[in-house]
């Protein structure tokens, strides 16, 4: 694959990262095998499809195919009011509805010039970081399933995730479809008991991470399966718009919590882990280390959580009509930069509503990452990119 236009970009269409790939067929090598992995395949994390061409088991060509879960979320949103899109954003990245809600609320607040009270900002950070833990725990679990464990790490991760999800249910009324953030604040004020339970859970979480790491991080099979697999170069990753832990695993220091310091993130003391090799192992470790940093943020948030209203008194729930204009709000979702682009023409419905899905754009370099590796690796690389098809296909 090479660009049609003659440019001298800094290797945007990077060379395959794996071993050299044979592209010829002759009498000694036999035919190439074309396999359509998906849409029904256990490891495509939904209804994603990869049309792979194999030389033996080595991938010489990979073509991602999308759209099996396409429901034109953007069109639906353009035909309903701003508020009515909020529950639909839950269904974009259904593992992290809290941060997806926040991204949408952030964009609408930017569009309407809406202020958010302090307590709500803290609550949003608490929930977003809990969501990050939920997402990374899930991802790591599923990654190990792709690596061939019999569900054990996944179920350990789910056990911990379940505790956080229970908190979400107690707070918002639903486990995954939280529909919690509102333009100008949050919907429900958590009770002191809830906060105490959440704080206790967060304090206990590093214990789980330690056990998890003891079980897996040093495992020789894991090292063999992930180190050096699916290398991603920093320059290519930036050019391809890859964000989130995948980008940081390649060594690029770009975390919107630091760069944009949206919400109250500038008030928190945390670090951004950076990888060096950009391979699957780094991507896995980024998740583990980010969970540890999230725990730190959460502990600070529980300590400093102010009292006060959770909803801006000027915020309008009924009859919300932002002034004409446009805004692009983005935040660091667990998967990368999640952005909402909104264009208002002064009516109750957005004129243009666009989601910038990190899952989709992080797949841009999937082929480059997989070339030269085997089918087994392709599954793992896809798993380490962390996609949710609800967001990819929208």
């Amino acid at each position: 694959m090479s660009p049609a236009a003659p440019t001298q970009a800094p290797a945007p269409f990077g060379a395959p990262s794996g071993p050299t790939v044979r592209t010829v067929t002759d009498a000694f090598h036999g035919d190439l095998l074309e396999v359509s992995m998906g849409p029904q395949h256990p490891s495509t994390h939904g209804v994603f499809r990869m049309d792979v061409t194999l030389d033996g088991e080595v991938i010489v060509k990979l073509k991602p195919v999308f759209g099996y879960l396409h429901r034109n979320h953007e069109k639906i949103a353009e035909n309903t009011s701003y508020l009515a899109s909020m529950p639909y954003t839950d269904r974009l990245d259904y593992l992290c509805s809290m941060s997806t809600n926040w991204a949408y609320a952030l964009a609408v607040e930017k569009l309407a010039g809406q202020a958010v009270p302090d307590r709500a900002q803290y609550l949003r950070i608490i929930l977003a970081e809990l969501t990050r833990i939920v997402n990374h725990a899930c991802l790591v679990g599923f990654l190990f399933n792709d690596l061939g464990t019999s569900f054990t790490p996944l179920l350990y991760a789910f056990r911990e995730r379940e505790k956080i999800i229970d908190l979400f249910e107690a707070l918002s009324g639903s486990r995954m479809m939280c529909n919690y953030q509102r333009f100008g604040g949050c919907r429900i004020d958590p009770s002191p008991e809830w906060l105490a339970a959440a704080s206790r859970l967060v304090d206990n979480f590093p214990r789980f991470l330690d056990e998890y790491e003891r079980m897996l991080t040093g495992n020789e099979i894991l090292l063999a399966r992930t180190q050096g697999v699916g290398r991603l170069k920093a320059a290519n990753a930036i050019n391809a718009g890859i964000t989130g832990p995948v980008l940081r695993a390649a060594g690029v220091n770009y975390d919107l919590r630091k760069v944009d310091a949206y919400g109250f993130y500038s008030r928190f003391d945390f670090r951004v882990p950076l990888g060096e090799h950009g391979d699957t192992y780094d991507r896995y470790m980024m998740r583990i280390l980010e969970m540890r940093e999230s725990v730190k943020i959460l502990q600070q948030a529980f300590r400093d959580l102010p009292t006060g209203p959770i909803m801006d008194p000027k915020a309008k729930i009924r009859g919300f009509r932002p002034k004409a204009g446009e805004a692009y709000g983005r935040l660091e979702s667990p998967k990368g930069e999640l952005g909402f682009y909104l264009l208002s023409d002064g009516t109750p419905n957005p004129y243009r509503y666009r989601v910038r899905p990190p899952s989709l754009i992080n797949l841009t370099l999937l082929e480059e990452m997989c070339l030269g590796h085997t089918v087994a690796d392709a599954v793992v690389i896809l798993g380490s990119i962390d996609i949710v098809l609800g967001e990819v296909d929208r």
Partner: protein
Amino acid sequence: MLGSGILKGLAVTAKNFAGSFYDPERMATVQYPEERAPLGEHYRSFPLLVCENAADPLGTLRCVACTICEKECPPQCIYIEKSKDKKPDATGKPQLYPVIFTIDTAVCMGCGICAELCPFDSIKMDKVFEVTATNRFTGLLLERDQLAKSNAYYHSIRPAEAAEVDARLAAERLAAEEKAKAAALAKAAAAAAKAAAAPPTTPPSAA
């Protein structure tokens, strides 16, 4: 040494194996039909319509068929037809009422926006999640009488919120009564004043 990571992993799974017998932190499963995890205060499943009197659910619905929920419902699963006549509502004001109020629970996603936006505290979120039907079209299409639940039931599922709503409604009712009383008094006063001020056109004996 090669294998040490594997041995550590085996140790952790063994620990979890043992822990699953005595440690509730590790064995978090709830044996569902016999045991049930408690539902939180804010848990929501599908909408219900609050009525004041369980004996006459359809006659005492709080709903005034304003259709805000119908318009705002994201998946458009609510269908309302307004009445032609008016009936007095909880505050005694004559209001419209829904002749048809259906919610297609096959479509409903339980987001709770209808309950959030309802200005009359009429539509609320239920907590019953075990909803089954043998016909996926009509079976899941809930009519007015299936949706109507008494205020007492609402109190039983969401005590804090219901108490708050009741207090607010009571205050409104009181205010409305006082307003009505004041209006009646004013009216009477005005009438009296009028009667006093106006020159008698009819002989007082006739009045």
